[in-house]
């Protein structure tokens, strides 16, 4: 063997160690010098990193990152909107990837000052937003080719969904999105909210898109019980948190729900919270499964994340 051949692996590793450049959600150009130690803030970011084969390099995660399940053993740096710079720096990260709403902003500035590459990943709740998210993460960790593979898989799922939504006849189903946080309040989201956005994508109608005499619901509100009935939902979609108890009965007991067609027929689809509102690489499949649950099944349905079965 010729001695100069040893140069090739050295050159390759040098090429891999080159800093990656990425434009993040705020338009800021970020230089990523090393992807050795990653703190991942956002469930969808963590699951995409896992698809890139990088879950071993995640040294810290936010509370909402539980896919793959091996992350549960790694340090939890808190809720994405209530981050603490010291808890993150304690993991000695070289790269912090966060969803764009992560904060508070001063904490992100503190991380940058400490010399950590911070990439705010775009997080729009649309298929285009998912593609942007996958590509941004791919660029940040130097795997643009793997990112394109994931984007193509997403497009296949969306195509399968479209073939179903386009042949379906009749009025779209009226669906109420409830975020369960208090047994005394029916907390409902309009279609701009990330979890509720999947309902529209799945070919159904958000039941609070327009309410008689009251207009549309923007964002999420405590809907008064009578307005829940006035929305006339035929089905209810609700996220569940794998680490917390969930029961369909408690959804049926929320103010107003029992008086709706959905409540009377027990038409409730409960979906893993990352699966329904994360908008990760599984968003297309999630919308497809939601479509099937809404239009092809009856009674209560529970949809787990394909990569997380508790």
């Amino acid at each position, binding site marked *: 063997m010729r001695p100069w051949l040893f140069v090739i692996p050295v050159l390759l590793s040098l090429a891999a160690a080159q800093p990656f450049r990425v434009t993040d959600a705020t338009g800021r150009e970020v230089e990523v010098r090393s992807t050795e130690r990653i703190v991942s803030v956002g469930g969808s970011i963590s699951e995409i990193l896992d698809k890139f084969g990088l879950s071993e390099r995640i040294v810290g995660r936010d*509370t909402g990152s539980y896919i793959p399940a091996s992350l549960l053993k790694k340090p939890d740096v808190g*809720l994405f909107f209530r981050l603490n710079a010291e808890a993150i720096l304690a993991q000695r990260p070289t790269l912090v990837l966060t969803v764009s709403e992560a904060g508070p902003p001063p904490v992100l500035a503190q991380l940058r000052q400490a010399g950590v590459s911070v990439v705010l990943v775009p997080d729009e709740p649309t298929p285009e937003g998912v593609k942007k998210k996958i590509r941004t993460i791919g660029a940040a960790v130097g795997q643009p080719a793997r990112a394109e593979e994931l984007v193509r898989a997403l497009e296949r799922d969306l195509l399968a969904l479209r073939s179903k939504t386009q042949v379906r006849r009749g009025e779209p189903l009226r669906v109420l999105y409830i*975020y*369960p*946080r*208090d*047994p*005394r*309040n*029916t907390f409902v989201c309009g279609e701009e909210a990330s979890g509720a956005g999947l309902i529209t994508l799945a070919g159904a109608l958000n039941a*609070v898109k327009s*309410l*008689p*005499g*009251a207009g549309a*619901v923007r964002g999420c*509100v*405590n*809907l*008064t*019980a*009578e*307005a829940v*009935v*006035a*929305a006339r939902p035929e089905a209810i979609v609700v996220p569940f*948190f794998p680490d*917390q*108890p969930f*029961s369909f009965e*408690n959804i049926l*007991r929320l*103010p*107003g729900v*029992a*008086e709706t067609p959905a409540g009377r027929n027990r038409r409730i689809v409960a979906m893993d919270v990352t699966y329904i509102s994360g908008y990760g690489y599984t968003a297309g499949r999630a919308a497809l499964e939601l479509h099937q649950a809404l239009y092809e099944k009856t009674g209560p349905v529970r949809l787990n994340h394909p990569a997380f079965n508790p």
Partner: protein
Amino acid sequence: MTPDPRQFQRRRQGLLLALALLLPASLLLGAASGAYYIPPLEIPRVLQQGLEGASVLLNLRFPRVLLAALVGGTLALSGAVLQGLLRTPLAEPGLVGLGLGAAFGAVLWLAFFPLAAWGLPLAAALGVLGVLGLLLRLVGEGEQPGVRLLLMGLLLGSVLSALIGFLQFRVGDPQGRSLTFWTLGSLGGASWELLALTAPLALLSGVLLLGQSRALNALTLGEEEAFHLGISVGALRWRALLLVALGVGAAVGAAGNIAFVGLLVPWLLRALGGADHRFVLPAAWLLGASLTVLADLAARTLFAPAELPVGLLTTLVGGPLFLYLFARGGWRG
């Protein structure tokens, strides 16, 4: 200035009569309006023929209006009794830590049994009893027990709200966020079941408290004078505080802390009709019930289809009003 007693008596009767008419009027108004629009004059027909909307009226609106009345009446009556008992016009369930005790009991219950909402009113009543027992031990037999109780109640209240915050932090999201309900109050969860769970405790406490008006009148003359009138002050205090605990526990357990009803209502009534408990207590129940029904009507219709926590409204209206009255110096009623 001493008003002619007979004239004053007539005035009280007039006020009681007006309040007795105000309550059914507010109940009707509350029952006639809501986010689910049904023309008010159509309501009898909708109910009779079981038309669309009948189930909204029967299962959502009617129990809610009744619960609002029950909770408001109970809170105002409890406030009036506390003020008479402690002889300080600032005593209010919310101020002496009882409301937060109720909330703490309920929050503790939620932390351990997040899915068993049926236990909330009882757990809340136990929370009030716990706070009350602790307070009475702490206050002891020193001078000015009323003032001491008020101050210690305030301190205990802030410890309790910190404890609630701590539990909130430990229980975490999303259950954690839900706990703000207890500090702001809402009647949004009203149902016949909740009413059935709340009414026995609240009504029992209410009826028995109304029977204490003569003893409370005697107490306003002073503890010694009350003793000479044949009132056992110690027993009266225990009995009344226990009944207040039951009522406040049931009310807060059902609807969270609806602030200022227990403070403002008795205060207004004393300003209008004097301090005789035979007048103040029943009048407080009636006025507290009516005002809470109306406040809740605003909470569920002002920003429909969204709803405001009713405690937010009562504080926004009641707080500044009370400050104004208080600053004008008429705090003795």
